């Protein structure tokens, strides 16, 4: 992880200073860009392992850069956004961003997101393994068996498909659209309430306290995440 190059695309100087200082002290190499044009050049010459992208850049739409990065490399992109901009986050995630951070955020959140994103880009978590394990949850894909702390749990086929998709992307946020598309197919991509009701059922089966989920967390206005420690 440390030694990896992170491209920081942020126009606000104090914010950029914070990101540089926090990441540099954990051994990352930093490349900075204060405009989208700079970022585009830096993405070519520095070959970053991950990108932090502020969506509100002064010289254009951050989403355009995101699409460009996606077309060129598989380096994960984490977007930086504000609390009341859920639509913006969803658009970025559906356009290929890997995760997001809501301003204000602290060092620990920043590092946690970068670590998950780097791990995913190395293909360690997106697996086709027969058995997936996240925390106390163990999923045997060939036998369609799920256990939580060695206790067998019975899931419906829909709940099972949801859990497998979440577990394959453990630690990463998945939008409502991505989940609906994967589990129900492209025709049902707007029936969010089915997804919500099935998620509630899944929580009741897997969580000790479904109102305070420890593993299947909600990202308000965006989607869900299966927490990976």
């Amino acid at each position, binding site marked *: 992880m440390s030694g990896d190059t992170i491209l920081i695309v942020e126009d606000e100087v104090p914010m950029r200073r914070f990101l540089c200082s926090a990441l540099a002290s954990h051994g990352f190499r930093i490349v900075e860009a204060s405009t989208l044009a700079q970022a585009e050049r830096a993405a070519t010459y520095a070959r970053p392992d991950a990108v932090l992208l502020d969506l509100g850049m002064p010289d254009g739409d951050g989403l355009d850069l995101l699409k460009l990065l996606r077309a060129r490399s598989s380096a994960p992109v984490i977007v930086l956004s504000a609390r009341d901009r859920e639509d913006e986050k969803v658009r970025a995630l559906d356009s290929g961003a890997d995760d997001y951070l809501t301003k204000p955020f*602290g060092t620990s959140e920043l590092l946690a997101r970068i670590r998950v994103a780097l791990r995913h880009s190395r293909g360690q978590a997106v697996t086709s393994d027969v058995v997936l394990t996240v925390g106390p949850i163990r999923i045997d894909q060939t036998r369609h068996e799920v256990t939580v702390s060695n206790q067998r749990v019975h899931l419906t086929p*829909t709940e099972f498909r949801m859990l497998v998709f979440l577990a394959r992307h453990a630690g990463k946020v998945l939008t409502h659209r991505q989940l609906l598309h994967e589990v129900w197919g492209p025709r049902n991509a707007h029936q969010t309430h089915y997804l919500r009701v099935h998620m509630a059922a899944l929580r009741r089966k897997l969580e000790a306290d479904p109102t305070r989920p420890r593993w299947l967390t909600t990202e308000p206005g965006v989607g869900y995440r299966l927490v990976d420690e």
Partner: protein
Amino acid sequence: MTRAYARAALAIGAATAIGIAIGDRITIADNAMLYVIAILVAALGGRGPSIAAAAMSVAAFDFFFVPPRYTFAVSDTRFIITFSVLLVVGFASGGVITRLRETAVRAKTEQLRNALLSSVSHDLRTPLAAITGMATTLRERTTDSVELDTIIGEARRLSALLTNLLAITKVEGGAAPRREWIPLEEILGPVLVRLDKELADHPVTTALPETLLAHVDPILFEQLLLNLLDNAAKHTPAGTAIELSAKREAAAAIVKIADRGPGLSADERAKVFDKFYRGPTSTPGAGLGLAVSRGIALAHGGTVEVSARDGGGTTFTVRIPDGEPVPDLEAEAE
């Protein structure tokens, strides 16, 4: 203002002059129409000039054109109808113009206020993000620091205040909530996480029926619940329980948040939802939380009510009526 009246007089004068100049080629009804045009021109100055123009046009029309001419006498009662029409045109068009103006001014004020608030909150948020970031970076390198913890905690409070300010601009700006069917516990989860610190000294018990659906804007409703729970935590002694329960009743979702605090007097209960009301205690806060909660409930066509609780304490009851029939989830059974 005087210019508007002068323009009204001028318009009537012009209508009269034209009427006299081409009087032999037009009928008396056409003369009346000339005055209608003059009144509409005067109405651009608002209600007063419009009514004045109507009165002047009746007088001028009667004096110059209604036989016997050059007297105020009226030979034929049917001219009374013409007079009435002129007066009605004056009143009605003046009123419409005035209302249009007021709406335009209000829209402009609203627009300005929202633009100001959203730009202020953006401008505040950016330095706040840098402060939080830098303080947590420093905090990592120090073992124990009350100073840094205070900076981080206060930045967090400012950020919460901004969120409330933005929520109130949203609902008071008249933006319709983006309502979806959502299980209540899905909204409650992130609220309890966000209030982790505030609720540390208060056991929260929840009694929710399995998959209780509410038809709400998830982001706004999360803020509504957060403010009510935060309020309960702030105003009750450490160690006292907060109970949250919910049910569906008569096509509405009902959520109750009950505490065992000191309770509120009838007078306090009447004021508790007012913006910037902070109560008799010295609890820190801007006095926005409950006002925002009520604003969000109203935007959903619902209510938040406060009542004294049997055995001491306060109960807040939120009622959100469904905006559409509950979806049939069985139809999608696998």
